[in-house]
């Protein structure tokens, strides 16, 4: 436990020294503030979009890049020669990125709720379940990229390359009702799309569709299993 704490402290320091981490925090905030000035009071669309962007950036960009870089630089391998297994480092990283995603979302919700007067949901339990399943699905995709990418640069490139089509299909580039119907329909079943849609539903105080939650859970479980199967320590 002491070692995990030490690892966590060091990894937090490294994260704060990483400019990429600041960007994943600032980009969704920027989008929220820019578009937030023109929303109706009680809006249920913009904030779930910003939250999906934030989680998408952490899951698709920051997580896989960090992990693939650690493997590429032999950090995981070096650690496996010590009494501490490198799996501990992975666990600390995933937890830390989760904390980062949560912090970003908390910041977004605070800004949206106070400054922008956006609607905040009342069903906290539903929000938590949808958020965790969605984050699980996005992190699973990130872990799969980390497992398959040869190095940090590839992971970064693949993450960015996947982010844009996924963000488009999820309705993060333009509202889904302005998208071709077929694409919007497909988008609902992508990890990021199901996440945004689910968050939109809980924001509007409706029960999130069990199909969407099921889709997210299925992505989270199957993709992480594939990632675990193909993950290489060196």
């Amino acid at each position: 436990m002491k070692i995990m704490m030490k690892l966590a402290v060091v990894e937090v320091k490294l994260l704060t020294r990483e400019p990429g981490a600041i960007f994943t925090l600032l980009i969704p905030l920027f989008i929220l503030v820019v578009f937030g000035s023109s929303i109706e009071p009680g809006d249920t669309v913009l904030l779930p979009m910003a939250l999906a962007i934030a989680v998408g950036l952490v899951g698709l960009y920051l997580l896989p890049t960090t992990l693939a870089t650690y493997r590429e630089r032999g950090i995981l391998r070096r650690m496996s020669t010590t009494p501490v297994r490198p799996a501990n480092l992975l666990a600390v990283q995933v937890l830390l990125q989760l904390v980062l995603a949560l912090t970003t979302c908390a910041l977004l919700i605070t800004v949206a709720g106070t400054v922008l007067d956006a609607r905040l949901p009342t069903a906290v339990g539903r929000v938590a379940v949808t958020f965790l399943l969605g984050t699980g699905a996005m992190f699973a995709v990130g872990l799969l990229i980390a497992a398959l990418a040869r190095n940090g640069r590839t992971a970064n490139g693949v993450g960015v390359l996947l982010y844009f089509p996924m963000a488009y299909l999820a309705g993060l580039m333009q509202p889904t009702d302005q998208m071709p119907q077929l694409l919007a329909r497909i988008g609902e079943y992508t990890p990021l799309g199901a996440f945004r849609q689910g968050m939109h539903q809980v924001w509007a105080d409706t029960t999130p569709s069990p199909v969407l939650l099921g889709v997210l859970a299925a992505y989270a479980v199957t993709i992480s299993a594939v990632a675990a199967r193909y993950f290489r320590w060196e």
Partner: protein
Amino acid sequence: MAVIEVMDLRKRYGDLTVLDGVSFSVEEGEIFGILGPNGAGKTTAVECVEGLRRPDGGSIRVLGLDPVGNRRALCEQVGVQLQHTQLPDNLKVWEALDLYASFYPKPGDWRELLVEWGLQDKRDTRFGKLSGGQKQRLFIALALVGNPRVAFLDELTTGLDPQARRATWALIKRIRATGVTVVLVSHFMDEVEELCDRAAIFDQGRIVALDTPAGIVDEIDADHEMRFTLMAGELADLTDLTGLPGVARVTRTGDRVVVTGRGDFATAVTAQLARHHVLVSDLRIDKRTLDDAFVALTGRPLE
């Protein structure tokens, strides 16, 4: 006492035999060299000993432990510097040492290591800003921070300039002085000659020689030459030299004499010259090195 015992180690990757029956043992407190060209199986052998790779055959004991079965117990007592590893660029020197020290049950004081390895000025410097030599010193310090009984150092001075290499050599000798057994993997002959008490020369997955560096050189059965110039006014009875043990040939061109032979014939020749009161100048003996030994043993030069 042997701290490492390797018997008939075998490892294949697909059709490629990387280790083909390698046996050696390392005694407590010595610097043991593992030498050979790239692809000879050195790193694979050491990684099997470290427990990073699982051998296909043979047995390994390190400090009496099986590197695969007793992985954790072994990791607590060995320190490793691996080839091609880095740290996060933004990690500071002291943070790396402090973190790695926390991994071990009885770590050394990393502040002392910082001073000892000349890194105290770099305490707060980030890894990415260190020079090659400083990074290498940090890696050695990290290999020692757990107070290991055995330290493995793999291609320690590759990529360093000559000055930094020599400085690193001096530091390695200091490790031995503290009683830590060192296994040094290298493809530099001069490094092994300078540092190692004993060395194994690897070639194509086998050990082709195992002895002290001087012993390996002495064992090779090849002629070498001793040259000198007779000083004016002295007459030498050169037939006397031909009969000396090890001398094969004596040739004279004017005052210039070349004696060819095997083994330690030069001592006999100089004694004989002294006995006959022959004064010579410009005396040169071709010093054979591990490079020559490698050529003699494998039939080709080390790249």
